[in-house]
């Protein structure tokens, strides 16, 4: 009898301290045309989960739980991505979802999460369209696409000589259309003349400022064709490529002068619970993966951290409770201050950056210039 009681006691004790593994599911572009950015997310999720597990994991209901990741390769195919998220939920029975890269993927995949009432935190989609559907379970660590050129336009207002006209070029997909809509509104408010057409209706070389919202391929071709055709805008800024190392490497010296924006720079002032600060994070990332992280990487890590803080605050892994905790989460991290608005999107200002001497230099944030902007850019032949 006493042996039986002892067995029962041991069993109850074990059950009380049994720590479950919390599994995240994600479908990311590891192969296919956008794999060069998709891999940032795989590395970010792996890195964050390893770091958090090394520090003891997540505290849930009195026990420390480890995190695990089930990652699938969607081959840059949206339809496969949707099927994979369904599989992650129904077959692999993951606890929570992490997002893919790219707004068009997030738009489709988020519907799966919402239908299953499982929270998804994604760091890959910035399009405002993601947050217009009244979804309650989707949170995003990328600030709104409509504001991408915000700091650039604020900087333009302070330039001397002021830009006479702006060409706004954009590709035909959710993210870029979002950017264009928001940017043209901001330009109008700033009183800057805009030529919105994708096509040049008059002298092609007469634009003083060109803003491009497009994919890396188009931006790369734009720069090379501008050089080849002798088109020298005084200022040109892109929504993609400039913060990313492989883009700068592909262009070499031709990347100098290009402006862009990022919501994140590896600054030591961004303190983090697990990584120390953003500067240490960037160093450790480079040591582990062999390339420099950019805001995609930081946004991916922020997604994992947001989940951990929410789970600890909710004290449970119940999807509805964690969802409620995510909506209220507010903490500082290597990515900046993480808090989601009532639509589920983070609000972070974009920092205008420019490539000078092969390095990314922060130019403008808030209301002031941080460093000198190279403007007007000299003609291609004179660089």
């Amino acid at each position, binding site marked *: 009898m006493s042996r039986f009681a002892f067995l029962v006691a041991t069993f109850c004790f074990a059950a009380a301290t049994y720590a479950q593994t919390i599994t995240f599911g994600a479908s990311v572009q590891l*192969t*296919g*045309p*956008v*794999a*060069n950015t*998709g*891999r940032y997310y795989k590395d970010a999720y792996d890195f964050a989960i390893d770091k958090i597990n090394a520090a003891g994991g997540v505290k849930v209901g009195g026990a420390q739980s480890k995190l695990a990741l089930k990652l699938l390769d969607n081959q*840059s195919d949206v339809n496969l991505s949707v099927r994979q998220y369904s599989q992650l939920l129904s077959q692999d029975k993951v606890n929570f979802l992490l997002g893919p890269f790219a707004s068009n993927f997030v738009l489709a995949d988020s519907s799966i999460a919402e239908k299953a009432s499982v929270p998804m935190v994604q760091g890959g989609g910035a399009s405002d369209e993601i947050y217009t559907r009244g979804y309650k379970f989707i949170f995003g660590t990328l600030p709104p696409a409509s504001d991408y050129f915000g700091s650039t336009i604020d900087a333009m207002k302070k330039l001397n000589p002021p830009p006479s006209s702006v060409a706004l070029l954009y590709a*035909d997909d959710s993210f870029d259309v979002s950017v264009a809509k928001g940017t043209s509104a901001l330009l109008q408010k700033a009183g800057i003349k805009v030529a919105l057409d*994708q*096509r*040049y209706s*008059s*002298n*092609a070389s007469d634009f003083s400022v060109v803003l491009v919202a497009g994919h*890396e*391929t188009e931006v*790369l*071709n734009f720069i*090379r*064709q501008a*050089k*080849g*055709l*002798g088109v020298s805008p005084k200022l040109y800024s892109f929504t993609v490529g400039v913060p990313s190392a*492989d*883009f700068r*490497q*592909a*262009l*070499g010296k*031709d990347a100098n002068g290009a402006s862009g924006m990022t919501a994140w720079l590896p600054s030591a002032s961004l303190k983090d619970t697990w990584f120390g600060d953003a500067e240490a994070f960037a160093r450790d990332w480079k040591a582990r993966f062999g390339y420099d992280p950019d805001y995609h990487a930081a946004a991916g890590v922020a997604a994992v951290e947001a989940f951990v803080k929410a789970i600890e605050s909710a004290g449970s892994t119940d999807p509805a409770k964690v969802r409620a905790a995510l909506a209220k989460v507010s903490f500082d991290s290597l990515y900046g201050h993480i808090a989601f608005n009532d639509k589920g999107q983070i609000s972070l200002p974009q920092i205008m950056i420019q490539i000078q001497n092969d390095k990314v230099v922060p130019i403008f944030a808030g209301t002031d210039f941080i460093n000198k902007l190279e403007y007007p850019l000299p003609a*291609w*032949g004179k660089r």
Partner: protein
Amino acid sequence: MQLLLQVLASGVLLGGLYALMALGLALVWGVLNIVNLSHGALIMLGAYATYFMFTGAHIDPFAALPVTAIVLFVIGYAIQRGILNLVIRGPMFNTLLITFGIEVVLTYLAQLWFSADFRAINPTYAGANFAVGGITIPLVQVISFAIAIALTVAMWLFLLHTRIGRGIRASAQNLVAARLYGVDPKRIYAVTFGLGAALAGVAGGLYGTVSQINPYIGGPLTAKSFAIAIIGGLDNPLGVIVGGLCLGIVESLTALYIGPTYRDVASFGILVLVLIVRPSGLLGRTT
């Protein structure tokens, strides 16, 4: 007017490069009756070969083209001799499947070895341009155009006047008669495929100087080469020049007047039109 001329000039230069891309495909298709779905992957490999010679050994990309051609010729010869020869007498569907499989394998090997990072071949003179009557012409594109046209004409002369060329044409017209004349089909087929691959490789190297390289550029380029080969007609090697120029100009004009989104609609629209009105291609025989 200025803008129209500029766009036409760009279209013509682009068209020359397209013609070279399609030449390899048309050659293999016309002679071996193989629609090589891995053609784009061979273009991609040629682009990478030129890129690595440029960045690794600092060989000027245009000087590296002959080496690229030889490397791709060897690869093409091996693919034909080793793999395609096994299904060449079978239904065409089998060759479609096998070449599709080769395309998938080559693409993912490239992803494994070279990663998905974008590369660009950026020689120091990449931005040089000269003005002709108010139109700006990029130097690199002119050189690519000149090489493309030269190779196409050279291929035409090769097929017409050399022994191997005549052997290739003979095998295409009547294999039994060709064998009676001493043509070894296995060798001729492998040489032809190798030539097609070599042309694809050179086109890839040139493509890398005007656009960017990643493992996935192959698919759309195969489709484009396919369209050009059909538009130009398979019977005459000069047909690809006509097809390429046609496509280059149509794409540039569409991008200007209708919108860049409709470029592919216009390209493939022309293809459908040609298939309806003149199925053997613009330069094909009408019998």
